[in-house]
C-alpha cells in the first residue's frame, strides 16, 4: 500500500512542496523536542556543577574575541564509576524490573488467556476491566497501596485481627512493596500485547494439537506459547523498560535505601541540584538501557517485516 501517494506526487513542484511540508512539521517537532535535547544532556554532563542559574558551568569561555577556552570535564562520569552507589542503583533497578516483569508475565498470561476464551462480544468488556486501572492515575493507584501496606494499614490490621501475627509486619518501604507496586501498575501493559497475540491464534491449531495426541499442558508449551511469543516479548519490553527508570513507585513504596536509578537521577537533580551529575546518569542510562532496547526493537521489526 505504501508508495502510492509517493509516486502520484512525483513530478510537479507544487505537489512536492505540499508533500514536503506535511513531512516537515512532525519531523521538525521531533528533531527539536526529542533529539536536540539529548545534545544538551550530553553537553551538561560534561560540565561542573555551579551555584548559579542555571546551576552549571559554561563549556565555552570567551577569553577574548578570537580565543575560546573549552572546559570539558569527565569528573561526573569518573564519579559514576567510582562511587558504588550508582553502579548498585543500576544493577538493582535492572534486577527489580526483571523480577517484576517475570511476575507480570506469570499473572498476565492467564488473564489474557481468560479474555481470549470469552465470546467475541464479551472480550471487549473484559479488556475494559483490565484496562480500566490504566486509565486512572498511576500515582493514585500506587498511593492506594500505602494505605494497605503501612504498619497500621489494612493488611496488618486484618492479619492481627485474624491472629495470624502478633506484631505488625514491616511491609511499606520495603523491596517487596516496590515489587507489588510495579506488578500492580504495569500489569495492563503486559496483558494487552499478550491478548493481541493470543487473539490472532487460530483455535483450530489447538484442536489439531489435541487431535494429534497432545495433552493441554503440552499443547500450551508447544503451540500456544511459541505463537504468543511476539506478544510476550512486546509485553516484557513495555513493562521492563519503564520499570527500570521508575521513580514514583520506589519513592512512595520503597525504603529510603531502595536504590533505583530513576530515583537517583531525580534526587541528584531536585535534592542536590547537581544538574551535571543528573545528566551523566541520564547519558549512561541512555547508552546502557535505551539504546540496546531500541536496537532490539528495530531488529524485531525488521524480522517481522521480512517474514
Amino acid at each position, binding site marked *: 500500500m505504501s508508495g502510492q501517494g509517493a509516486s502520484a506526487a512525483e513530478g510537479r513542484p507544487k505537489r512536492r512542496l505540499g508533500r514536503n511540508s506535511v513531512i516537515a512539521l512532525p519531523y521538525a517537532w521531533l528533531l527539536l523536542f526529542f533529539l536536540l535535547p539529548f545534545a544538551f544532556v550530553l553537553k551538561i554532563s560534561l560540565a561542573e556543577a555551579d551555584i548559579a542559574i542555571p546551576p552549571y558551568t559554561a563549556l565555552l569561555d570567551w577569553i577574548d574575541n578570537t580565543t575560546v577556552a573549552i572546559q570539558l570535564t569527565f569528573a561526573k562520569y569518573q564519579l559514576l564509576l567510582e562511587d558504588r552507589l550508582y553502579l548498585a542503583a543500576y544493577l538493582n533497578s535492572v534486577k527489580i524490573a526483571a523480577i517484576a516483569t517475570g511476575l507480570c508475565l506469570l499473572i498476565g498470561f492467564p488473564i489474557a488467556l481468560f479474555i481470549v476464551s470469552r465470546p467475541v462480544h464479551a472480550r471487549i468488556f473484559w479488556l475494559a476491566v483490565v484496562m480500566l486501572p490504566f486509565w*486512572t492515575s498511576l500515582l493514585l493507584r500506587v498511593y492506594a497501596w500505602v494505605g494497605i501496606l503501612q504498619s497500621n494499614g489494612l493488611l496488618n490490621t486484618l492479619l492481627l485481627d485474624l491472629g495470624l501475627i502478633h506484631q505488625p509486619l514491616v511491609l511499606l518501604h520495603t523491596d517487596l512493596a516496590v515489587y507489588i507496586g510495579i506488578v500492580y501498575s504495569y500489569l495492563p501493559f503486559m496483558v494487552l500485547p499478550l491478548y493481541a497475540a493470543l487473539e490472532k491464534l487460530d483455535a483450530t491449531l489447538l484442536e489439531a494439537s489435541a487431535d494429534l495426541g497432545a495433552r493441554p499442558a503440552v499443547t500450551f508449551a508447544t503451540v500456544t506459547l511459541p505463537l504468543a511469543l511476539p506478544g510476550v516479548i512486546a509485553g516484557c519490553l513495555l513493562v521492563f523498560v519503564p520499570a527500570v527508570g521508575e521513580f*514514583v513507585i520506589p519513592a512512595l513504596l520503597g525504603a529510603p535505601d531502595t536504590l533505583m536509578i530513576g530515583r537517583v537521577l531525580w534526587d541528584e537533580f531536585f535534592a542536590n541540584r547537581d544538574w551535571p551529575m543528573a545528566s551523566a546518569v541520564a547519558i549512561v542510562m541512555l547508552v546502557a538501557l535505551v539504546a540496546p532496547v531500541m536496537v532490539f*526493537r528495530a531488529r524485531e521489526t525488521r524480522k517481522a517485516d521480512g517474514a
Partner: protein
Amino acid sequence: MLRTGRFVSIMAVAGLLFLYIPILLMMVLSFNASRLVSVWGGFSLKWYGELFANDQLLGAAWLSVKVAAVSATLTVVLGTLAGYVLTRFGPFRGRAMMAGMVTAPLVMPEVITGLSLLLLFVAMEDFIGWPQGRSPTTIIIAHATFCMAYVTIIVQSRLAQMDGVLEEAAQDLGARPWRAFVDVTLPMLAPALVSGWLLAFTLSFDDLVIASFVSGPGSSTLPMVIFSKVRLGVSPDVNALATLLIGFVGACVFIYSWRVGRRARQRDA
C-alpha cells in the same frame, strides 16, 4: 474461540481481584469518617467537603485539565501527520530516522525525557529568549512530545488496516490529495483519533515526572500536588479525589465498551 481450563479461570480471577481490591478499598476509605485506615469511623462525606474546600488541589486539577486538553489536541495533530506520513508517503529521505524518533519515547524513561526537555528549554531561553521560564506552555510541549508516540502508533495501525485503495478511489474521482484526506481518510480515522486523544489526555493528566522537571513555580499540576501530599502519608481527601476520578473514568470506559460490545453482538447476529 479458545477453550481454557479451570486453572486459567481461577488464576485470571485472582489476578483481576489483585487489580481491583486496592482501588475498591481506597473508594471505601474515602467515605470513612476516621482519618485512620484501620478504623471505620462511620459513613461520612466530610473528605469530599474538604476536597472541595482545598483551593490548591482544585486549582491544580483545573490546570491539569487545561494542560491535558491542549496537549492532547496538539498530540493528535502531530501524531496524525506522523502516522500518515509513515504509512502513506512511501520511502523518503530520513524516513527510518523519523520512524525511530516517533517510537523511541515509548522506551524512554520519564526521568530522561523530563530532564532533557528541561535542559533544552533552559538553553533555548538562553539563545532565543523563549520560552521565558517554565510555564504551562513548556508542560504542554513536553507532554505533546512524549504522547505523540502513542497517537502515531494508533494512527499507523489504523491506516495499515485501512485500505489505501479508498484514498486512491477518491483521487481517481477527482479529489486532490488534501481533499481525499479530509473526505475519506479522516472519517475512517475518526475513532482512532478519539481514542488517541483520550489516551494522550490521560497520559498528560497522569504525568508526574516530566511535569515536575519542566513546570515552573506556580504551575503545579494535579499529580505534583498529590505527590507532595501523599509523600507525607495517607491523606483522606486524596482518597475522595481518587474515588471521583476512578468513578468518572470507570463510567466512561464501561459505557464505551458496552456500546462497542453491543455493536459487535449485532454484527455477529
